[in-house]
Every structure is written in C-alpha cells, then in structure tokens.
C-alpha cells in the first residue's frame, strides 16, 4: 500500500496548509473518485478524526460515503465545522474534475491525499504528497523526531484552529517529539486496522451513523462514497515496507527512549508475536468459556469481537503484538482485487492465510504499517468497508486475539512457576559473595507480564513499584516483610508524549479512571474499567481514531495505545480560568545576604533567562526584598524607573499598592531589567542585620493570592523579626552524637500554616537557603514542603570565597528558571480495587485520601506512595495504578498527564521475592525512615531500616529457600538490599557518630522526600568509576560523541589504587580522586598539570585539552551531567589533601569509627536473624 500511496503524493505532506480551499479540493477529489474508493474511505475516517481534534478533515469525510461518519463527528465538532463542510461540499461539487485526476494512486493512500488536498489549494493531489509521506515513515523508523516533523505538519493541516494551537504549544513546551509520537502510533494503528473491527457490531454502528447523519451536505456525497468504498477494497497492494521499520515503530510507541529502538526491536517483537500466536491457540482450547470464538479457527464467527475483548479482560490487551499478527489482514483488505464488488471474497482470503502460518504473517504484516503510517487513512478504508467482504476478514482477526490475550494473561501469572528458578530468585549467599554490586548500573526489573503489556507499560522512569509482583493478600505481603509502594516521577521531562485533544475525555463513570491501555473492551461499544471493573459505554467520539482516521477502533486510539498520555482538558476541568504564569522573587537583602553576594548571581541569571521563563503573553513577575522592613517594587509600565515602596510595619503587613507590584513581563521588561541591574548594588552599604522573613512571606502571600503562582524565596540566615522568627536550636556539641538527634521537626507551625494558605491559593513557595550558619531549615522547609515547592540549600555559600557553590547556584538557577512548570495542579493516584493508598511522601498537601494538591509541579519533583492491600486480590491477575496530574501549563492550557502502570498479582512468596525492585524499595524505605525520624526519633528510624533487612531476609530464609540456614541467604533480586540499607545508614540524613550539621541532615531528608528515584539512588549509593584508563570498549554514542562506559566499582577503599584516578558520582557532587601514584600521563593529559605535586588543592574543572584521554573523560562527565536536572559540582580531590575526607565518607562499604563495614553489617544482620 505504501508504495502506491507514496508515489501519488510525493512531497505534498509537509506542504499541506490547513486551509479550507485545500480541503475543498480534496473533497472534490474524493467525490470524483467514486471508482477509486480509497479517497472516499479516507473521507469517513477523516471525519472521525476531526471530531476529536480538528475540523478540517470533515470535508473530506463527507465526501466519502460515509455520511454517517461525518455526522458522528459533526455532533462533536462545533459550528465551524459545519461551515467548513459547507465549503467543502461546494468545493466538491465545483471541482469534480480534480477528483478524476487522482484515481488509482489516490486510492491507496487516501488519507494522505486528503491531507494534501487540503493544504495546497491546488490539485497537488497526485504528485506532491507521496514523497513526503514516505520519507516521514522511513525516517520515523529510525528516528522518532524525524518522523514527528512530517507528522506534525500533517496534524496541523487536519486540525482546525484549536488543534493547531495545541500543537504549537506542545512544541514550544518542549515536546518536540509529541507529534512524532502520534505519528508512530498512527503507524501501528494503520497496521492493524482491520483487526479491531468487530464484524457485526461495526456494521450496526455504521448503519446508525448513516441514519443519524442529518447533514444535507453529506447525502449527496453518499453515493459517491459508496462507490468509493468499493474502490477502496480494490487497492493495489502497496509496497511492503521493510519489516524492520515496523518493528521500530512499534517499539517507539511503547517506550520513550529514542536511542534504543533500532537494534532490539525486530527480533524481540517477532518472538513475541510468535509466542502470542501460539499462546492464543492454546488458550482457546483451554478456556472455551472465555471467548465464544475459537481462536484457532480461521472462519469468522458472528461475534468475534466481543470474545476477543473478553480475553483482554484479564488485563492483557491485544495490543500491538496481536495486532501485528493480524496486520497481514489489513493488507489484504487494502490490496484486494481492484474490483470492489468482490470484496467479500477478497477479505476472507487474506484472513485465512494468517491462521495457517502464524510466523509468516508478521513480516508481511508490517508492510501494512507503512501505508497506514503514511496515509493514516489506510484504516479508513477498512472502516468504510464494513458492508463489504472486508468485514469477514475482521472477524477472523478478533478470534486470534482472544487466544493471545488469554495466553498472555495466564503467562503473566504463571510464568514464574513454570520456570523453577528465575534469575531473580537465585539464592545468593551474601557473606560469601564479595562482589554483589554489578558492573553496570542497576536497571528496574521488568514486571513479569506478557510481552504486549510489557510494551505498553509505563516507563520505570516515571512510575515504579517496589514489588513488581503484587502479593495477593495483605497476609502474603506481611509474610514477605517488604514495603509495598510506588515511586513516581510524574512530570518528568519527556521526549515522547502523545498529546490528545478531545472533546470528551473518556473516563470510568464510577471511579473516574482515565481510559488506558489496560482496560478491556467488552465489545465495540463498551469497555470495562480495569480499576473498579465497571462497564462503561464508549462515547461516540471515541469510536473515531484521529491517528488512523478510522472509525470503530476504540482500542487503537492513542489513549489505549500509550500508558503515558497527556490530555488537553476542557473547561470542565477548571475551577476558574487558567491562571497566567506568575513569578514573585522574595529576596533577603540584610547585611548577611549582601555579604554572601548571591544577588549578583541571581540578577544575572534572571537577566539572562528572562525571555526563557516559561509563560505566555500574560506572564507576570514581581520582586520584593526584605531586611527588617519589606520593600516592594512598583514596576508599572510607564514609570521611568522602578519605584521602591517600603513597608516598615512588619506586625501588620499590607500591600502599599494594590496592583503594579506584579507586572506583565513583556510590558514592563525595561523596568524589570533596570531593577535587576540595580538590585545587586542597592544594598551594599546596609547595616541591617535582621531578617523579617515571616512578614515578607505574609506580604508575598497577599500579593499572590488573587492569581497563584510561584514564590521564590532567597534567605541567608535565621529569620529574626516579626512573625515566624526562629531561634538557633542546634548545639554544635551534639553534631556527632550517637544518641539523640533533636530538632528534626519544625520549631513553629507558622511556616506550615503559611504554606497551607499558599497552597489554598495555588501558590508554591520555593526556598533557596544560602547560609553559612545554622538557619533552622527544619522549620523553614515547611514553607515549601506543604505548598509543593522545592528546597535548595547551599551551605556556606559565598560568591567569591566558595566559587564552586556560586557556580552551582548559577547552574541550578538556570535550570530552575527555564524548566517546565505546571500551575494549580492536583494529582490523583488510583489503584485497582482492593489496594489503597496508605501514606504519601513528597512535597504537597494531601487533600483527600488519594488526592494531592500541588500548587506548582516541576519536572524534578518525585513522589512516593505507600500502599496497603485491603481486600484480597484473588479474583484478578493484574492490578493497575494510575496517576493523573491535572495542571495548567505555562501557556495557560489545562492539561492532564496520565500514567498507568500494570503489574501482575502473585500468590506465592517466592514470586513476591522474585519481583522485588530493590532500588524502589530502598527509596520508599528512606522516605518512611525520614517520617519516622521526625515523628519519633532518628535511632528508631535506623533500627527500622535494619529491621527491614532482618525481617525480609529471615522471612525469605524461613519460607522460600530451603538451603542451609547458617548462611545469610538472599534472593538475587534482594542481594543489594543490605548494601543499600547500609548506604542509607551512612547517608547524611541518618548517620550518627559522624559530625553532621543539623541543616545538612535536614536538607538530606528533604531531598529524600522530594527527589525522584534515579537521583535519590545516586545520593544514597554513589557510583564509582575508574577513569584513568577509559577505553572505547562498550562505549555508547550520544549526539556524535563517544561516551566511554567504565564499569562500576565497589564503594570501598580497597578499589582505590594509588596508581589510579576515580570518579565518584554522588548525584549533586562529583569527586575525582587522584591517587598519589597516578600515571603522569593522565595528570598531564586530563588534568593539565605536569605531575601529582603540582595539582592545586582546589580544582573544580577539567581543562579542555586536546588529547584523547581528556576527551574521553570529559565526554563521560558531560554525559553523566546531562542526565540530571541540577548540574553537579566537580571536585578534584588529591590523595592526602584535607578534602579527601569528603570523598572517603562516601565509601560506604568501609568501616568508619562510628559505623560498620559492609561485611560487619552482614554479620550483624545475620546475628539478628539468628536471634
């Protein structure tokens, strides 16, 4: 299909401007084509598409036969559509000749053609489009981004203005790939089009559609369309695109990583397919009840579709794999004989081959994808055909699916048992195994689901569960003694994110779950919620797939093909009009602050990034400064210079002017720049040492409360005046106490109350604490903790005396100011009935049992949730978790980002252990330990951490492993558990016996609570690499750079040889430790000094030397840096320099005077177990 299609519209795709004239032309073309059914088919499909997103498509649709289709959409769409339609129609009538031109080629790629026609008013029809489309498809396979571009253009054309804006906004927000994603999905859809079709029901629906269509315009078209349908069938078989491409596409759908796809994709998918097929057959035999249809039988049954859906029920969705299997079918449908009439015959034919040769079809099927991809319309053809023979083909497909699904679902639960000892269950004798730490970074375990679901499942970067096999009952969970919870990173920067604009967002009527890939379709018109099991109707609009522009394939919509999607929400999701982006900066300008000199850095960063602040034309900004009084700045447009207003009554703060303190960024830009240039020097001679932070915050709250937004507070000392004043609570003599660490909680609830007030007014407070002495972060942090802000702490900050901190502040500010932001957000986490949320961790306010109120959401915020199992999960084999984050983008759009995670349920303890995600478990434990140390005491928390290992390992020893009990045994999945817990115990937040400043400790706790898992793991257990002998072995290529991948080293001094140089990646800090006997070549080529002795004590940069080893080292470090939001500071530590203590404290496997070594710790645990 692809080939023919491609040829007709070579370059056109990109060009097509979304104009009505163009549309008219297309419509005309379609009408003319009667013989060339494809166009017509497209027409209908397009209509459906339009419904959700854009209007432009309609015209095309009506042309087609399918008046029905057009009607459906018509309801949805607003007036403009109709008008457009009118135009189109007229166009059609007028332009009949054009249609004639398109014929054969047009048929194959109806979608594409239509698109083109719209864009270019001219009859580009034949020639222009094909090339571009093909190009897009091919590029898509290799690079998502490339694909996306063509697609985006596509989308725009189709979409009416509304859509348009959406797209543009997306792009601006930095999801360039979004479009690409769509494209990808379309491809996949296109591949399977026929599969999804329920034979009977579909027909009905269509019929209904027909009748429903009132639009007069449609009718005339109808005739044409019918003829068109016939023609569509006749499509010449397109070129089968290279199979590999298809595979790629599929992968891309499921996952977000662009890099990885290419190689792995093909083989694995094929395997999966095969397995599915096999499985389907087997299942069919086993469970006749499930599906009315025999999966194996090639003949079509009357009710194939419903059956297939049932199979899905278990949770396994017949997704890409199944579809791929079926994909061959679609081809046939399109390919069929030129003669439309014979359709019935032709359709069956294609279907038959599939069942018989299971393996083969795949290769075949893929080709189908391409055409689909290019056209997006391909599916349409299938849609149109219902009446035709094509239909029968559909029936067959469904049959296959059920089988597949069943098998897969059963596999999901059983696979563990079938393979007696999965790798994750291999018992490891911890005391004997010296090298527990793998050489490569630890990846998240993949849930033991069937391949379809695996592919659809949410990326572990966004959503992880501590147990990837959910125990069936709370009793089983209690036996396993492992924490059950979720680790979330919901607003992560994504490179691939499908954005969906739709009038109705499909949700479960009782639990309000968003439709997701793991729901089951009972039949064409109903779906069953996978969280509460309610059966819901599929709304009319959802029947239309905007990607393939086909009708009647609800399970191929992007919502059902992607576990991470973003919806553009309608006004139903707004309590008030979306707020503009509002930024308020509250700056400490007391003597202490001026001395530290942060103002210069801040103002400089702001000046540089003023244009990059996320926002739209409504963006507002304001400044306040405070010492013992509060200073406001009137930046009203029209003033010649900023006006400073001082309020000295800090007991009863008021706003000196009601407006003009928060001003439009663009209208008052000059004034803002003047102010930023002047600020650093305004207070240089201040003698004011007091800090009235509390009153300043109260004023900020008053200022922000009408709109909400973000308040950034810069504070350099203990607040000493007015409300919220704090006293120093730290006793330096207790810093290294091994007994009690006090004052981890707040001293006053002033900041908490303020944060709650702010949260209520959709205002988040971000705290930058740049202090050299104790500032009671435990109290101050409350202002951010409960208002969903973030906390940055720069101990002993000084702009000149401590350049590394200054540099860090600068880089952090750049990220902070330019990163994405969501306003007035709420996040709801839902889970399958039987599970419930227990406790939440992170920065937010919990508004109800499953609803978090987030005044702001930023891409660096992570959350954790503890779960409990309230009811037994015996009647389900899969559980799902869904987070929905509703926020207002900086462009003033209301959006919902939905992540859905699906996990299998198991009933044996061994399976529970096999599925432990040890990193997630550690992060959850760390969060729980922070709570414990604040509510109870630090020593309690430490005991709880040790008990967590003792309990889980002893539970494992007594129930699962039947090996000798004298040794300390752990399943392979848990072998890192003791190491990580030891690392936690030696972490700043929980360590005792080592001198730790209270603020440092509290900050570490704040980070544990708010960091996403990936960053938190580096904080807990740093990565150590040897970098004096970097080679290209195993190197990866990133952006044309070769990045060496040295193996991970144990965090032990035994690994540090004097002859080496080591890089330690602690998340927010890098250390390079240079041994005394380090090779002079390395020192010279990488560090730029002739020998060890000449390396300076304080060195924070690697010089850019033109040597191979320097290049490797730098590219490695840059690569590590790029992977995190906040740029880490690099310290080069010479052996024997005083700074090496900083480095050595991270070698957690070694013994310190106050803590166990790893081996001692194991013995300790063993002793505890034996007790």
């Amino acid at each position, binding site marked *: 299909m692809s080939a023919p299609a491609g040829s007709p519209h070579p370059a056109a795709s990109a060009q097509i401007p979304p104009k009505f004239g163009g549309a008219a032309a297309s419509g005309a073309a379609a009408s003319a084509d009667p013989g060339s059914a494809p166009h017509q088919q497209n027409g209908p499909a397009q209509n459906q598409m339009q419904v959700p997103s854009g209007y432009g498509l309609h015209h095309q649709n009506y042309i087609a036969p399918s008046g029905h289709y057009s009607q459906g959409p018509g309801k949805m769409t607003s007036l403009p559509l109709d008008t457009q339609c009118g135009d189109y129609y007229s166009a059609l009538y007028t332009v009949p000749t054009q249609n004639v031109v398109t014929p054969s080629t047009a048929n194959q790629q109806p979608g594409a053609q239509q698109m083109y026609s719209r864009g270019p008013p001219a009859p580009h029809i034949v020639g222009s489009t094909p090339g571009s489309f093909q190009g897009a498809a091919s590029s898509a396979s290799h690079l998502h981004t490339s694909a996306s571009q063509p697609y985006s253009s596509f989308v725009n054309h189709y979409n009416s203005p509304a859509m348009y804006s959406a797209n543009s906004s997306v792009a601006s927000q930095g999801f360039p790939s979004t479009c690409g994603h769509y494209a990808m999905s379309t491809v996949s859809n296109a591949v399977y089009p026929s599969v999804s079709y329920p034979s009977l029901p579909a027909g009905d629906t269509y019929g209904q559609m027909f009748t429903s269509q009132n639009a007069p315009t449609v009718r005339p078209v109808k005739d044409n369309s019918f003829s068109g349908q016939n023609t569509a069938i006749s499509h010449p078989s397109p070129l089968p695109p290279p199979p590999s491409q298809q595979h790629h596409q599929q992968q891309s759908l499921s996952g977000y990583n662009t890099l990885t796809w290419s190689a792995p994709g093909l083989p694995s998918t094929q395997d999966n397919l095969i397995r599915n097929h096999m499985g389907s057959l087997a299942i069919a035999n086993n469970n006749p009840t499930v599906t009315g249809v025999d999966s194996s039988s090639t003949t079509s049954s009357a009710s194939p579709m419903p059956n297939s859906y049932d199979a899905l029920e278990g949770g396994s969705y017949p997704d890409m794999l199944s579809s791929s299997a079926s994909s061959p079918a679609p081809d046939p449908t399109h390919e069929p004989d030129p003669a439309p009439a014979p359709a019935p015959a032709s359709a069956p034919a294609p279907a038959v081959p599939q069942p018989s040769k299971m393996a083969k079809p795949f290769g075949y099927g893929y080709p189908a994808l391409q055409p689909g991809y290019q056209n997006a319309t391909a599916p349409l053809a299938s849609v149109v055909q219902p009446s035709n023979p094509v239909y029968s083909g559909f029936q067959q497909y469904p049959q296959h699916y059920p089988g597949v699904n069943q098998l897969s679902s059963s596999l999901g639960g059983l696979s563990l048992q079938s393979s007696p000892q999965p790798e994750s269950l291999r018992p490891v004798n911890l005391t004997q195994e010296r090298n527990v730490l793998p050489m490569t970074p630890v990846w998240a375990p993949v849930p033991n689901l069937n391949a379809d679901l695996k592919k659809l499942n949410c990326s572990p970067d966004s959503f992880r569960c501590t147990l990837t096999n959910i125990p069936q009952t709370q009793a089983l969970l209690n036996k396993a003694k492992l924490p059950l919870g979720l680790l979330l990173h919901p607003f992560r920067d994504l490179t691939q994110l499908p954005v969906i604009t739709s009038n109705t967002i499909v949700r479960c009527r009782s639990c309000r779950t968003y439709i997701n890939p793991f729901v089951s379709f009972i039949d064409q018109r109903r779906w069953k919620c996978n969280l509460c099991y309610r059966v819901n109707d599929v709304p009319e609009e959802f029947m239309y797939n905007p990607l393939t522009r086909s009708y009647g394939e609800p399970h191929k919509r992007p919502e059902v093909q992607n576990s991470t999607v973003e919806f553009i929400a309608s006004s139903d999701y707004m309590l008030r009009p979306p707020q503009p982006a509002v930024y308020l900066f509250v700056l400490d300008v007391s003597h202490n602050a001026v001395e530290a000199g942060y103002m210069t850095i801040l103002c400089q960063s702001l000046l540089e990034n003023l244009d990059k602040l996320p926002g739209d034309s409504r963006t507002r900004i304001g400044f306040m400064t405070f010492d013992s009084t509060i200073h406001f700045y009137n930046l009203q447009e029209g003033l010649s210079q900023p006006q400073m207003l001082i309020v000295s009554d800090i007991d009863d703060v008021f706003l000196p002017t009601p407006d003009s303190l928060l001003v439009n960024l663009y209208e008052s830009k000059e004034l803002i720049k003047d102010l930023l240039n002047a600020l650093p020097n305004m207070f240089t001679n201040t003698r004011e040492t007091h800090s009235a932070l509390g009153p300043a915050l109260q004023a900020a709250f008053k200022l922000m409360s009408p709109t909400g937004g973000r308040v950034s507070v810069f504070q350099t000392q203990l607040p000493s005046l007015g409300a919220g004043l704090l006293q120093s609570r730290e006793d330096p003599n207790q810093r290294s106490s091994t007994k009690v660490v006090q004052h981890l909680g707040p001293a006053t*609830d002033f900041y908490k*109350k303020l944060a709650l007030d702010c949260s209520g007014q959709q205002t988040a407070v971000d705290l930058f604490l740049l202090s050299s002495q104790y500032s009671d972060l435990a109290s101050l942090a409350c202002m951010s903790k409960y208002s969903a802000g973030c906390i940055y702490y720069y101990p002993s900050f000084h702009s000149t005396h401590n350049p590394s901190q200054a540099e860090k502040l600068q880089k952090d500010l750049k990220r902070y100011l330019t990163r994405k932001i969501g306003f007035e957000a709420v996040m709801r986490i839902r889970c399958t009935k039987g599970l419930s949320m227990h*406790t939440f961790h992170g920065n937010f306010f919990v508004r109800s049992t499953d609803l978090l109120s987030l005044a702001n959401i930023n891409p660096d915020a992570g959350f954790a949730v*503890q779960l409990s199992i309230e009811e037994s999960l015996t009647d389900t084999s899969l559980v799902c978790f869904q987070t929905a984050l509703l926020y207002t983008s900086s462009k003033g759009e209301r959006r919902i980002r939905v992540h859905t995670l699906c996990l299998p349920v198991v009933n044996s303890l061994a399976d529970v252990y096999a599925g432990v995600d040890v990193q997630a478990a550690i992060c959850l434990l760390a969060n729980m330990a922070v709570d414990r140390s604040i509510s109870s005491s630090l020593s309690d928390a430490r005991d709880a951490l040790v008990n967590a290992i003792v309990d889980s390992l002893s539970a494992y020893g007594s129930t699962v492993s039947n090996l000798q009990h004298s040794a300390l045994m752990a399943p392979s999945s848990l072998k890192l558990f003791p190491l990580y817990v030891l690392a936690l115990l030696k972490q700043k937040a929980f360590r005792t016996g080592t001198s730790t400043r209270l603020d440092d400790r509290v900050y570490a706790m704040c980070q544990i609570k708010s960091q996403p898992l990936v960053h938190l793991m580096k904080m807990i257990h740093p990565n150590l690499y040897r970098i004096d002998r970097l080679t290209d072995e195993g190197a990866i290529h990133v952006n044309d750079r070769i990045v060496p991948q040295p193996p991970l080293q144990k965090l032990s001094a035994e690994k540090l040889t004097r002859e080496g140089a080591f890089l330690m990646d602690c998340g927010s800090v890098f250390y390079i430790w240079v041994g005394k006997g380090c090779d002079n070549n390395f020192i010279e080529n990488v560090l730029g000094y002739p020998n060890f002795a000449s390396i300076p004590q304080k060195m924070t940069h690697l010089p850019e030397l033109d040597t191979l080893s320097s290049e490797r080292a730098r590219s490695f470090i840059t690569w590590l840096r790029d992977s995190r939001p906040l740029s880490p500071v690099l310290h080069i530590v010479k052996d024997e320099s005083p700074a090496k203590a900083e480095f050595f404290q991270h070698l957690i496997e070694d013994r310190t005077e106050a803590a166990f070594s790893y081996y001692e710790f194991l013995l300790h645990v063993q002793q505890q177990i034996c007790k």
Partner: protein
Amino acid sequence: MAFTFTAFCYMLALLLTATLIFFAIWHIIAFDELKTDYKNPIDQCNTLNPLVLPEYLIHAFFCVMFLCAAEWLTLGLNMPLLAYHIWRYMSRPVMSGPGLYDPTTIMNADILAYCQKEGWCKLAFYLLAFFYYLYGMIYVLVSS
C-alpha cells in the same frame, strides 16, 4: 433518700457524659467524612481542634468532682482516660493554636485509622460510663 453532694456529682457527670457522647459521635463522623473525601482536611481540623480541649476539660472537671466526693472507685475508673488525655495532649504536633490535629498529617492512613479507632473507643467508654453514673446516682440516692 437524700440529695447529697455525691448524688449531685453523679447527676452532673451524667449530663456531661451525655455531652461527651455527642463529642465522640461528632468526632467519628468527622473522620469518616475525611476518609470518604467529603471534607477538606484543613476545614475539618479547624472544626475539630477547638473541641479537643473542652472535651478534655469536661472530663477532667468531673474527675475533680468525684475526687471531692471521695468516689474512689469511679475516680479510679476514670483515671486511665484522664492520663491518656494528658499524654495525648503532651505529644501533639507543633501547633500554635489549641487542638491535636494537624491537617498535613491527618490524611496519613495510620493517623486517620488511629483517630477513628480512638473515637469509637471513647464512644464506648462514655456510653458505659453513662450507665455506670446512672446506676451510681440511683445507688447513692437510694442508699443514703
């Protein structure tokens, strides 16, 4: 049959316990509402917190009355609750106002469950106490 101070104490305690029963019911309903998402935790805490001290004071008040009346058994039965109240209030979170409940932690499942359980236990205790006081009052009236 004489109307003694002891009898007066019992009668007063009877009335006050009836009030406390209402407090306990209110408490239970409030937490149930929280659990079922009907109420915002901030509002709920704002309505519950002012009631905490009055409840404790009422209970402490008739404990003192029983002490004065030298009703040692009755006093002894009430001592555990009195001690619990004192402990509970001593270990409350950092708050500037009176009360026990912190809107930021109240939604924690453990705390919510604890508060609910506390409500039911108190309700049971007050109900039993109510009948005990009734019996005590009649006994005192009849015996004296």
